[in-house]
């Protein structure tokens, strides 16, 4: 998965968790929780969805790497190689 696909994958997960959030204007270099209402329980859900959809395990100490979309791309890129984007699941 390339950068755009990883961002799409994360946005789709966030939209599943928080259907009432508008994600169209999300900046990639600003903390997600500063742009939309996401708390630690929601971050757990992002991690759980990554595991469910892509088989990617993110240990608790690495949750902080997912704070921004750029951070997600940097952290997830090696784990998402060769995986197929799943949206709207």
């Amino acid at each position, binding site marked *: 998965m390339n950068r755009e696909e990883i961002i799409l994958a994360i946005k789709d997960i966030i939209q599943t*968790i928080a259907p009432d959030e508008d994600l169209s204007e999300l900046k990639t270099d600003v903390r997600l929780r500063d742009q939309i209402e996401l708390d630690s*329980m929601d971050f*757990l859900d992002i991690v759980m969805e990554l595991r469910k959809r892509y088989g990617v395990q993110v240990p608790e100490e690495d949750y902080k790497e997912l704070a921004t979309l750029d951070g997600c791309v940097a952290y997830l890129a090696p784990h998402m190689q060769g995986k197929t984007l799943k949206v709207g699941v």
Partner: protein
Amino acid sequence: MANERYDAVVVGAGMSGLAAGIRLAQYDKRVVVLDRHALWGGLNSFYKRGGRRYDTGLHALTNWAPPGEKSTPLPKLLRQLRIPREELDLAEQGFSEVRVGGARLTFGNGSASIEEAVARAFPSEIDGFKRLVQAVKEHDPFGARPDGGAARARLAQWIHDPLLVECLLVPVAFYGSAREDEVEWDLFVVLFRSMFLEGLARPVGGIKTLLDALRRRLVECGGELRMRAGVARILLNERQAASGVLLDGGEVLECERVLSSAGRVETLRLCGLDSPAEHLGRLSFCETTSILARPTAALGHGATMVFFALDERFAYRRPNGLVDATSGVVCASDNYQRHEYGDAGVYRVTCLANHDLWSGLHDEEYAAAKLRCADEMLAAAGKVALDPRPHTTAFDMFTPKTIRRYTGPHGGAVYGSPAQARDGHVGVERLHLVGTDQGTLGLVGSLLSGVAAANRHVLMAPTT
């Protein structure tokens, strides 16, 4: 099929159990939620009599949040469960009252409303009350420490008039204190926020609307809900860790973890372990439901809820008699802004009751005692709200004995053990408490406790 194996078995299909089940099923855990009874919901359920549905438990859903609010407990909970808010079809209260001695607080939803109520009824206390509201907003009631101490003593920091202190304690005690004569500070903070700073609402259709949404979501995620499947024992392995459950019918379900909503004392008993006497809950209730010929408001009573104590200082403790009608809660379910009752009124009165006395009655004594106590309760309600008796077309009542029979808590103690295990641990590995005995109360609190336990003990646990 031989012994099934689950990632988690949830004991009890009440609010916390259903919520835990949904969270686990949502992430592909193999989970089953078990309950001895035919209907799910636990203490918050319903029954049918004379073609009519009677709710148990639910007077009000606390933690009202206006549409669009995202940061308070109710929207966070619904997000975790992925239940669209519209599915609950929440109708706000009109207004509610606290009546203690001669004092009266009339309030609606939101912190501005309760501040106005205090300014009207206790003008000299408003500055202190605002400081209290600020303290409640800033306090973290979930911090890791054993106990916050007694709320009554804390409140004296801000409030000088003991009558106002009592006005604040009555609704909070009735909405969830498991301790006699005392409301613990952290509990006060949680309930004060959820009742006063957020507010009260009710799903149109009553508890069934919420129960249907929870069941639908659990099944949709692949979780199992098994009714008439009572747990006779929680099985422990050779390391004294929970390893499964034995059902009433003899079937064994093996699992990685057990989440139990049965209560602290009851859960340990299922493990074959005893609890000290001071862990037994002592507070139980009688509740009447009167169906009225006309809407309650048309009969002159407009409040949705009335939390009352006839005396200036109320006794929140197990009564010496069958029932203590000097304080209680009145709920007119048809005084929510929308409801399903058409032109009928639905009027409920709840008072403290003594489980052991009710349990000791013979059948004929029991029936007569119900009538007598109902009269006491309805007369008391008449002093602060409406005496429904002249307008009643149908009537039913439950007692601590009913609670015990249908939902199983020791002593009919709906708010559980006074000794709460906040982290859900009861000293048995792979067994976690959810629900009331974690110290979270109200429907939203119970649901959140199930979510939190599923997250912490199963989803975030290292994979085995």
